């Protein structure tokens, strides 16, 4: 019975991340074996804090580094529609951000203001 419970719980937890759509650049980085995020569990848990810290430093103090920049997240985790060579928005259903956020029912407010695809000319 216990074994069955463990199997069930593992399936439940992994189902949140199982279908994560990593995005084009992120997938190729992962495939190449390079490490971008030191700890995946940390970035999964506290990426909002990283972003919040960074946004205050950037907006209020003018510190503009690439570390934890939302632009960086978007450009790496975005997917492209192969048929028309257009990017999918990262907050679109089934894309990187909304994939988990919808599953866990946490609203995603970044993209009511922030651009959801990399900037023009980077296609």
């Amino acid at each position, binding site marked *: 019975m216990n074994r069955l419970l463990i199997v069930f719980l593992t399936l439940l937890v992994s189902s949140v991340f199982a279908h994560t759509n990593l995005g084009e650049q992120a997938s190729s980085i992962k495939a190449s074996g390079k490490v971008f995020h030191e700890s995946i569990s940390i970035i999964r848990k506290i990426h909002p804090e990283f972003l919040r810290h960074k946004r205050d430093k950037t907006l209020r103090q003018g510190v503009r580094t690439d570390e934890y920049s939302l632009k960086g997240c978007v450009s790496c985790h975005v997917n492209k529609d192969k048929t028309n060579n257009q990017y999918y928005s990262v907050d679109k259903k089934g894309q990187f951000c909304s994939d988990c956020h919808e599953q866990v029912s946490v609203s995603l407010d970044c993209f009511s*203001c*922030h651009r959801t695809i990399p900037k023009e000319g980077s296609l």
Partner: protein
Amino acid sequence: MNKTLNRRDFIKTTSATTIGVATVASGITLTTFASTNKVPVTNEKRWGMLIDTNKLTEAGIDGMVSACQEEQGWGSELHSTGSQKPGWIKKLKVKDKATGKVSNLALMCQHCEEPPCVDVCPTNASMKREDGIVLVDKHLCIGCRYCMMACPYDARSFVHEALRNQKEHMPRGKGTVESCTMCVHKVDKGEVPACVASVNSDAVIFGDLYDASSKINQTLRTVQSAQIRADLNLNTGVRYSGI
């Protein structure tokens, strides 16, 4: 111990030292370039602008407005009606009643040293950076629009509709207040604001007001200039000459 230096050893040591020095030197240059935006801005600088109303033509002001729209991505709102439309920078006609002299002003956020918009903001969203640039922190903005009412220059606008496809460097969204940022994203990179770049002549000068060697500081010391509504003692960062 024999310490005579033969030719081969000499070449070895010299090349090793040269490589070493070169590596260190290039490291220093790289860090100097990379560290421009790693440290917080300070109040040793104060960014400002001087607009010469005699030199700046009406077409020049229109050019500034469209350069701003192009750079920051405003002005193509579909559902906002007349007074709801954003206007980060606008053309203003002022007429001297006595002489009938008409001047055209390019009016935008004046980046006050004592900004009334910051005083009234209930959430601390309206803020002034150390280097004098006044901004809206849209993460904190609740859209109450007190700042719009407090601003004597009518420089701020409110986003009335949901937007998509914003500029990467300029997040804009429904329910927040926005205004001229003095192209802070460009200034931090060492560039000049888009509107200043659009004017080819020296009708609009951008620079550090405190830096005695800057063009704006030197010009302000030689020509007569004015602040709009100087009676309010806000000490604006945007100055006008010829009015």
